[in-house]
């Protein structure tokens, strides 16, 4: 497909993806409050509309009708720029995520992805790194000390964890040899001919998934990493001075980012739109235009549903974590990022690279046994990491500060 149909199809896909993402954000804000209610043994919003579903619309209306305030100390252009920068990267990121199997249309086979960029997930890292400016500028331009502290913390934290986020994807490149996102998905399906692995990468790379997930939590500023807005210390941090729709844009940006990271975890580690234990959905378009498998609208819908369910589950875990774990202290957060995560990811890359070298030296074909061997190595790595980290050998925990306090008081 090329020429005018391609432009029209891309426009439709872009508008469709954007609309669905914003609807998903609405649902996510509702779901978060219901899950919070469930975890804290209360009801959550349940008054407006059936089971409280219209609460989101009521909140949106309220935010539109509220007065936009402009603090006297604010620096105007940046104060307006920050919310835009919060919402922009999070919504643009979804462009490289494939939603489902290619759909047959009268104008040819259409892949369900807005842009099959050749730089693949480098695009994700590039666009994702702009999100920092929203936090930093929002905090600085508000002209308030709390906001500035939140902005400073936010930018320091996001720079720190961006490194780990990027490095945690290196083992993935080692396995796939390609950065294109649809290619990564088809590697996790079972095609004939030896290029595909036939298992989701959560098996051979589950420590990598853990690193990516932790760094993703930090990148999206979600608890336990929400230092930029730690409300018990900084009111709400970088968006303290924002009101009405500008505040809302920060929130929409945050939730859109959470959903995008959920989609990325799905695509990179949970097989993307692949339906498990079924080979009927193994459809791909090769570079020379040859179609492998039998695409149909029904299969596309089924894979779309599978993708939605998986992403929803990952986002659900995000929310579950938020209402379960307490917030890190700022120095603990920095220690975790620089003194544990970075080193651990680097060592993990080395281990996986050596393991792949060894497996290829042994001549093991890609498939179940290959994944199982890597899985075993992952188990060992995870055992060492958790065994050491859990004894607070690397992460300075509460016991250290307690000891310091006691020493300062002359107790020890």
């Amino acid at each position, binding site marked *: 497909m090329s020429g005018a149909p391609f432009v029209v199809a891309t426009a439709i896909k872009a508008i469709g993806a954007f609309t669905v993402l914003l609807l998903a954000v609405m649902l996510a804000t509702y779901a978060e409050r219901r899950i919070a209610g469930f975890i804290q043994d209360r009801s959550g919003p349940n008054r407006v509309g059936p089971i409280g579903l219209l609460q989101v619309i009521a909140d949106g209306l309220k935010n539109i009708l509220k007065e936009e305030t402009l603090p006297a100390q604010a620096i105007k252009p940046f104060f307006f720029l920050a919310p835009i920068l919060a919402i922009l990267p999070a919504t643009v990121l979804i462009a490289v995520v494939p939603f489902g199997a290619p759909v047959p249309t009268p104008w040819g086979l259409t892949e369900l992805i807005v842009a099959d960029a050749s730089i693949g997930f480098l695009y994700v*890292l*590039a666009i994702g*790194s702009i999100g920092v400016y929203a936090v*930093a500028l929002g905090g600085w331009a508000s002209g308030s000390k709390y906001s*500035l502290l939140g902005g*400073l913390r936010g930018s320091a934290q996001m720079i720190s964890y*961006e490194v780990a986020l990027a490095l945690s994807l290196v083992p993935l*490149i080692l396995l796939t040899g390609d950065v294109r996102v649809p290619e990564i998905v088809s590697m996790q399906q079972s095609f004939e001919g030896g290029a595909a692995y036939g298992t989701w990468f959560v098996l051979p790379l589950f420590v990598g998934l853990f690193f990516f997930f932790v760094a993703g939590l930090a990148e999206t500023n979600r608890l336990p990493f929400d230092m930029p807005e730690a409300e018990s210390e900084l009111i709400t941090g970088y968006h303290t001075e924002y009101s009405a729709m500008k505040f809302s844009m920060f929130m929409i940006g945050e939730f859109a980012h959470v959903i995008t990271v959920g989609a990325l975890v799905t695509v990179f580690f949970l097989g993307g739109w692949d339906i498990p234990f079924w080979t009927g959905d193994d459809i791909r378009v090769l570079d020379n235009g040859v179609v492998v498998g039998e695409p149909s609208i029904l299969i596309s819908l089924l894979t779309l549903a599978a993708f939605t369910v998986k992403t929803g589950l990952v986002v659900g875990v995000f929310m579950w974590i938020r209402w379960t774990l307490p917030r890190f202290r700022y120095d603990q957060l920095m220690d975790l990022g620089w003194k544990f995560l970075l080193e651990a990811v680097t060592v993990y890359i080395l281990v996986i690279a050596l393991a792949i070298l060894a497996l290829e030296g042994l001549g093991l074909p890609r498939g179940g046994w290959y994944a199982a061997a890597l899985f075993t190595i992952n188990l060992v790595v995870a055992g060492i990491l958790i065994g050491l980290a859990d004894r607070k050998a690397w992460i300075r925990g509460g016991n250290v500060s307690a000891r310091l306090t006691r020493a300062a008081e002359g107790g020890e």
Partner: protein
Amino acid sequence: MSDFLFYAFATGSVLGAIMMVTRRNPVSAVILLVGVFFSVSGMFLMLDAHYIAAINVILYGGAIMVLFLFVIMLLNQGHATWNDMRGPATTLLAGSAGVAFLAVLSHRIADGTTYAPTVDQAGQALRAQAQEMGIIGMVARPLFTDYAIVLQVTGVLLLAAMVGTIVLARKRGG
């Protein structure tokens, strides 16, 4: 279409650079410089150098400029307006360097050479290499084979700089 995109990105980068230099507020300058990096990345994209475009945004737009912003916010909160150009001698030197650069540039443009075929050739070569080794392979292969030693030496140099910075910072802190 591609002509329009080129002029959009070119205007963006040149105008952004001029505005960046003339801003008094350092935070404005940082944001404008980020804009310049994005325009330059757009031009890389048009030359089919996708990897360079992405890395330019990741490293310069996303990491280094954020550090700049962080340091500006931490040190003087972006309100300082002092002038780095001290004395007429420095101004004269900087000004004449700028004029000389402009003269060389305008001479090169005025002598009638068209660079479009060269750009096309470069694009063709890049596309051929991308076909052969993949978009990352064409940067990574030479980097880790032909230039492996240079890469290692650069790494050691950067490490030395980093250690030196930490030592200097430590001394003052006591």
